[in-house]
């Protein structure tokens, strides 16, 4: 099973359409005497006749699609993985290091980052602000959004180079209802309504 997801991504493997020719060197394996006969079966290397000393390991590709997704979340997830590594490094720094953050701040910051990822925010830059908070930063043309995350408060500051436009504060207990906070922050930064679509299905996004 994939280490990065509980769904194997089709993009990592060869995808063949029904009309496509077999890849070079591929062999058509002999038919299988089984009720669940595969529609097509072929080997991807020159020789696969090594059954006596080998055991099979199989992996199922759960989903397959003909259309290509317009937007893939894989890049967003990769950026947030880097953010997660950075937060872990800030926690692991030596006690006297000015960049070190305290554990309660770390847990809240990680949770906020996870929710930001779920709400499709671009991954922010992260700055330290002493051991009791971290700052997530996004720049949008002429405005900046600074989200200061501490153990018990989220503080959002939206500013231009000339002035502070808006300041919003939330207690962290409101993280139990993330549907209110994160679209509101996005709307405040962009100064326009933000469309938020509730997904009825429970499967993971591609």
């Amino acid at each position, binding site marked *: 099973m994939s280490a990065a997801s509980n769904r194997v991504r089709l993009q990592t493997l060869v995808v063949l359409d029904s009309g496509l020719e077999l890849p070079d060197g591929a062999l058509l394996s002999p038919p299988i005497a089984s009720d669940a006969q595969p529609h097509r079966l072929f080997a991807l290397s020159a020789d696969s006749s090594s059954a006596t000393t080998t055991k*099979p390991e199989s992996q199922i590709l759960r989903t397959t699609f003909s259309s290509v997704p317009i937007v893939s979340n894989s890049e967003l997830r990769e950026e947030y993985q880097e953010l997660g590594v950075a937060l872990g490094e800030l926690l692991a720094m030596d006690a006297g290091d000015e960049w070190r953050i305290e554990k309660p701040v770390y847990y809240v910051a990680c949770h906020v980052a996870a929710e930001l990822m779920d709400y499709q925010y671009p991954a922010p830059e992260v700055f330290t602000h002493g051991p009791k908070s971290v700052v997530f930063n996004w720049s949008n043309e002429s405005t900046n959004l600074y989200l200061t995350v501490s153990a018990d408060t989220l503080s959002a500051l939206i500013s231009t180079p000339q002035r502070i436009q808006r300041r919003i504060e939330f207690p962290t207990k409101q993280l139990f209802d993330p549907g209110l906070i994160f679209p509101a922050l996005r709307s405040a930064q962009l100064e326009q309504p933000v469309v938020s679509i509730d997904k009825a299905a429970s499967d993971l996004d591609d």
Partner: protein
Amino acid sequence: MGEWKVLNARITFFTVGPVSSSDQSALAVYRQFWEDDPDSFQKEPNPLAPSMAQGRRGGLLAACIVNPTRTDLNLAAAGTDAQGPHPTLSLIEDAGQLRVELTRITDAVGRGVISRALNRVALYVQFVAVKPTLLQVNKTLMSIIPDGYRPNLTDEESFIFQINRPQVLPDVEQLRMNYITKWSAESIRVITMLLPRDPAVRMGPPNIGSPILGEFLAASLSFDINNVPVAKPLTPPQQSSLLLNGLTWAAETQRTCGLNIEGFDGVSRLE
């Protein structure tokens, strides 16, 4: 219809609020539900990446994947070495065992096994009937789609039809539940890698990781039952009640659609 089998099932918990300790890994959650160590465990490489624990439960393969905002318990068929070198699609043969396992998980949820706050729970079950051609897949799908929705298919590919019939549960604080049914033609690809039985045996070319790709066409009927996210975290009895409601609905609906999966009917609480 003996041709229909369960491909996989999943129970999902959507967590809210920051964690208060590091003891929320897949290893800890696996042990809480199955009271045993997994066969394999992968720790999260960073706090925003998932951790995963996996083990066999009789004929089932149980996997626990913990993401920052959701935890999934997946159940699928446990393959065997006896399947041979050619790719086979492993399906859950004993749907009764699956029903028992899902019910047991639901009961454990009701006892408060999940320590984090949840605002949503979900149950997913997928049934498939493997067919040799797309024509037969589509014919099978048309035979189980209710009269009012049934299209006239021939050899069209990638057929998907999904509906949601949400309901409010008056006995669970008026929570709104989604009841999603999806009929689809699936192309399931299985990759088989040939590995040496003896780990000390070194495989040389041309046998290194000789992957063999098998493709299976299947008619698929899947259910996704979940509640609309709520502002106030669900209590353990509410979580259990919602999941059991989903199990009961799934068992009844697969029977209504004509699948009649032996053993999956008659969901009931464990004694």
